[in-house]
């Protein structure tokens, strides 16, 4: 490794790219996402290339898989393909050749490859970024297994830890994402699968399929938020469930966060734990609060410390801005001989909430 120039981390790379993005003329990125090889990503992509070309667009194919199915091969024969560069130790897309050729759209079948040594960029997705920067629109395919942030989950499902991956931030930076969905039964066996029985195999595929659908939904959600912000639309659509658990130093958080975690998992919801800071609190309350926030953090929640004079107003405003669909709050039973909720924050929340559920926990 001696003498090697330091390569940028994916994060540095992305940050730079995004900074440059402001400069006009950047190509659009479209991701075609699948959950297994054999789901039909290549066909869908290359068929899109064919259709675009028939509509008169200037289309090239910048990368094909080592072995494409016959129906894909048949279409490829009618398209212009810029072959991969053969370098010692592997192949890489020919960035210079593609930029010189400068098509309107470049198709990359298979995004998750590391480049062999000696190529400027370490990975293919960074090469694709260069094409985008050069103003070329790119359509690229990837399997959900090869998303860096999902590696642990993929390993838990398949037993294999993928090594060549793409950061999810790159996927989320795409202007468009399309998922190629198909029932698990339709996926052909690969030789490596022979040893596992059919039921297990189907279960694995189903879990990968779920991962892919949720990832696509998350990308779409980000696009929706961007769109709404860009157009100054304050509307929240609630297509993505978001749970806000409101805690105090005295909350019975285990019950609330346990339930929230369960519901979040089932709905693939975002879990937020919020605390409304209202002035000074005692040292013992602070300690109790910290303990509860630690529980929330351990549950994978996003922690939000909110400032506001009025508890209810603060919670409602935050909920609205974040698109919260379920608000969890504890309700104390210990208010006097005749317990009341009239006039309490919980009562006001119940009356004033719009477009969300208020879940009240006994404390």
């Amino acid at each position, binding site marked *: 490794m001696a003498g090697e120039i330091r390569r940028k981390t994916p994060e540095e790379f992305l940050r730079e790219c995004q900074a440059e993005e402001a400069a006009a003329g950047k190509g659009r990125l479209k991701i075609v996402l699948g959950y297994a090889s054999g789901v039909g990503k290549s066909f869908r992509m290359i068929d899109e290339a064919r259709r675009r070309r028939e509509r008169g667009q200037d289309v090239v194919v910048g990368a094909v898989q080592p072995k494409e199915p016959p129906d894909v091969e048949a279409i490829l024969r009618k398209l212009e393909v810029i072959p991969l560069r053969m370098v010692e130790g592997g192949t890489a897309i020919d960035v210079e050749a593609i930029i010189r050729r400068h098509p309107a759209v470049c198709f990359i079948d298979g995004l998750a490859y590391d480049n062999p040594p000696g190529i400027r960029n370490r990975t293919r997705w960074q090469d694709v970024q260069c094409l985008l920067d050069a103003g070329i629109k790119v359509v690229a395919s990837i399997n959900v297994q090869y998303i860096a942030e999902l590696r642990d989950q993929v390993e*838990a499902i398949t037993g294999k830890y993928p090594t060549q991956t793409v950061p999810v931030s790159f996927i989320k930076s795409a202007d468009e994402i399309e998922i190629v969905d198909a029932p698990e039964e339709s996926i052909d066996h690969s030789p490596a699968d022979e040893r596992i029985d059919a039921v297990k195999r189907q*279960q694995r595929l189903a879990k990968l399929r779920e991962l892919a*659908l949720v990832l696509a939904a998350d990308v779409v959600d980000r696009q929706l938020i961007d769109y709404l912000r860009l157009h100054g639309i304050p*509307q929240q659509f609630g297509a993505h469930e978001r749970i806000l658990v409101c805690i105090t130093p005295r909350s019975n958080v285990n019950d609330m966060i346990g339930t929230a975690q369960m519901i979040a998992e089932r709905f693939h919801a975002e879990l937020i734990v919020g605390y409304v800071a209202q002035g000074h609190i005692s040292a013992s309350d602070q300690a109790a609060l910290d303990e509860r926030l630690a529980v929330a953090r351990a549950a994978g929640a996003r922690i939000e410390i909110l400032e506001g004079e009025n508890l209810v107003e603060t919670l409602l405003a935050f909920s609205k801005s974040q698109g919260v669909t379920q608000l969890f709050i504890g309700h104390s039973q210990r208010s006097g001989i005749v317990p009341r909720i*009239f006039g309490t924050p919980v009562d006001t929340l119940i*009356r004033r909430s719009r477009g969300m559920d208020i879940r*009240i926990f006994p404390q």
Partner: protein
Amino acid sequence: MTEHGPERRRGKLKIFMGYAAGVGKTYSMLEEGQELKSRGVDVVIGYFEPHGRKDTIAKTEGLEIIPRRKVDYRGSIFEEMDTDAILARRPEVCLVDEFPHTNVPGSDRAKRWEDVQMLLDAGIDVLTTMNIQHLESLNDQVWHITGIRVRETIPDWVVQQADEVVMTDLTPRALLHRLQRGVVYGREKAARAMENFFQEQTLVALRELALRQAAHEVEQRLDPADANVGPETQAQNSKHNKILVSITADPQTAMLIRRAKRVSDFLNSECFAVTVQPTGDLSELPEKDRESIDRHLNFARNLHIETRILEAEDVASALVDFARRNQITQIFLAQPRERLWIPLLSRDLVQRIVRLAKDIQIVIVSDRETASR
């Protein structure tokens, strides 16, 4: 059915799920029909809606189409799927477009999905198409997103019974291009559609709903014994949940039922719908209230929720007693209305239930407001 051979299996149902007209559901369905036919499977088209789309119509070539049945309704002729003719023809696989369609009054069955049940019962496999907007439990969310109250809905359990739900995906941008090119509708109709339903943010939100629903459908079909292999850890715990919905004459009740049912489906938990009446039945109620409650109870039953009428004067304590006896863990109530003529009545109900149900979670469901546009 049983006389004809108890061993005959029920047909398999596959749904092509989309989020708007023009994403390619029918095309995908026909493509699969063609592929099955090329493999020697006996395939017919039971119902197909061409919408004048050339590419789609081309995909029907060579597939047998069962002629539609003509129905005379108030002097006009309507065409519906001829379920009897399909049953008589007895194919292996039948393609049925527009699963959520409502049949013209006077048909044997009110809904096309009920016709499809007949085909499945007869052992015929069915491929069908629907958009996410038509799923009953999402009706309020869809209204919220689109401003449109969808009338033709399919109960969630019908979709859950499907053997496969496949997402037909297309990016909203590509869909809008298709619209502009006049592929989906004629150009004039397309222009109108784009001003209304086909706005980019609406499409993106619906698409997200569809993707999340498709993910949920995949998860639901996982064998529970094996479900803990993956990332799920809490899934098992959710089985201990039981949900109670309070049924009243309030028009918000339908929304409340949908929401409670959706949560109970996602948690894999049981769901009960209960109304409390002093007489133990609806007979003493004013006609309008009786009709409303009856309709809500029917609606709940259609969604496969168990319903009860409890005899009691005190609604709050009757609900909480019932909850205790049945190990209910969550009670769903509609948001109290701020109406001047019943100032504290419904607020008082929520208050009393919260107070009585010390160990039970109370969920207050509020209106999903429609998108301001």
